[in-house]
């Protein structure tokens, strides 16, 4: 395991941000720390990095206990949400920072910086200052800076949180490709379940300072450990007392066994996907999801009568 947090607890005054959390991150993996705001995910990441000291518990990186070590000596790379670019240094200087601190020979620094800027597609911008870069470029620079010192683990705190939606999508696909090239054990914090599901090998879902479930995106979606995981990780529809995935509700035109009768109140066409709001005869409301073809086959219109059952 590249990173292990063992029963980590971190309090700020009366508030327990992380409550006895244990996680393991396999070497070479890309792991997402997912959760709503205030779930303790960023704090856990900062405890792993050494920027925060845990009140209880241990942090082990590549087999050695680093709990008492400062961030300088943990062999980590850290990327901040708001880039933390060194504003008075050029892009080149920013990326070279860690290498200069380590007193590497000039020729080696030059070669490494050039290679990294190529990797993050900023080759032509080495002489620019952070203020002259876009948000996405700044974050790529911050990533190159963190990778320059060849960290054992790369930690990213909401790396795309400050970017607009389009750049965010581009960058996360790019991060996945980069990870496949560089293979450094990577852990990133996000509150966006789509982001986590799209690029992570493993997702650690946190809520109120605890881990709710750990697993692949598919595990969490198909075998959620509890209601929180189910509703956080994908769409849910309330059907009776149960939470159901809205595409797991069987909709037919004819009565079928225990299927309940409902009236279509609204149909929304979202391209491939079609959503429909239904009202059961007893007044309860259910929403369902289906493909465009399924909706066409059912000839779903406002006012249509249908029969629904859980698949």
């Amino acid at each position: 395991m590249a990173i292990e947090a063992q029963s980590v607890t971190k309090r700020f005054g009366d508030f327990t941000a992380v409550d006895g959390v244990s996680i393991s991150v396999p070497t070479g993996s890309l792991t997402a720390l997912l959760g709503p705001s205030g779930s303790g995910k960023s704090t856990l990441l900062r405890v792993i990095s050494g920027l925060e000291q845990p009140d209880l518990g241990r942090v082990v990186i590549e087999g050695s206990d680093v709990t008492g070590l400062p961030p300088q000596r943990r062999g980590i790379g850290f990327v901040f949400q708001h880039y933390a670019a060194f504003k008075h240094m050029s892009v080149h200087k920013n990326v070279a920072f860690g290498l200069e601190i380590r007193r590497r020979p000039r020729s080696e620094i030059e070669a490494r910086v050039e290679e990294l800027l190529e990797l993050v597609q900023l080759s032509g911008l080495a002489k620019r200052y952070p203020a002259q870069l876009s948000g996405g470029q700044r974050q790529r620079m911050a990533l190159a800076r963190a990778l320059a010192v060849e960290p054992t683990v790369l930690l990213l705190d909401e790396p795309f949180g400050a970017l607009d939606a389009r750049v965010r999508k581009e960058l996360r696909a790019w991060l996945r490709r980069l990870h496949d090239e560089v293979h450094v054990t990577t852990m990133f914090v996000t509150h966006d379940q789509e982001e986590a599901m799209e690029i992570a090998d493993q997702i650690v879902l946190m809520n109120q300072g605890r881990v709710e479930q750990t697993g692949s995106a598919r595990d969490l979606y198909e075998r959620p450990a509890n209601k929180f995981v189910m509703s956080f990780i994908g769409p849910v529809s309330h059907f009776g007392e149960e939470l159901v995935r809205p595409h797991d509700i069987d909709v037919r035109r004819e009565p079928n066994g225990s299927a309940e009768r409902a009236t279509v109140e609204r149909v929304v066409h979202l391209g491939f996907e079609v959503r429909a709001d239904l009202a059961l005869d007893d007044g309860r409301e259910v929403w369902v999801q289906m493909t465009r073809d399924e909706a066409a086959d059912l000839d779903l219109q406002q006012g249509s009568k249908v029969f629904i059952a859980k698949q």
Partner: protein
Amino acid sequence: MTRLRRYLLRVVGLSYLGVLLVAPVGLVFYRAFENGFGQAWDAVTTPAAKHALLVTIIIAAIAVPANTIFGIVCAIAIVRHRFPGKNLVNVIVDLPLALSPVIVGLAFLLLFGTGGWLDGLPFDVVFALPGMVLATMFVSLPFVVREVVPVLREIGTEQEQAAATLGAGGWQTFRRVTFPAIRWAVAYGVVLTTARALGEFGAISVVSGRLIGKTESLTLHVEERYQSFDYAGAYAASVLLAMLAIATLVAMTVSRPKDEVR
């Protein structure tokens, strides 16, 4: 209407500056050079005037660097660290701005003078250069702290944390990340400290004993010349003092890159 108002505002603003700043300073310059440059030059090259200039420069050369280093350390402590009594420190730093310099001078007399708590040091403090340096340090203490504190707050801690994750120790982080970010605030603080140190009169006039050719600074020299009805000498020395202060201002403005915003 709006145009009229704009002109009116300008006239009010400029006349305010004119009456309060430009006219008095300009008059001193005019009076100093009224009877030719030669006379002014002679007035500031008398042994007493030259010594007074030397005393002022020695005082500034010790007080300014000392308060710069203290100011940076103190600002970092106030903004970045938690310690008991922090609020008290924050208030005490402003004390020299609130206290009249004469009181400061008197306090130093009581502390270091005959029968004072710290009387009997191996060297003279009161009526000597050390006392004048201490008094100047006291009155010019807050400027660097007050300039640096808001800038440190504004830049936040993220860049410093990033430096730490990249392997930089405390001193390296300060030298490569924190200091470059606060350098213009420090520079501005240094200019204000220098101006205050050069212009200090009240505290120094009490602790120095005003021994001509010994503990007379340039400000004391100006007054002493004036009291002796040597107006030419007083004006010439004033001009010298003003030019020293203006030179520090100009030095900072010139050395500052144009595109950089403080």
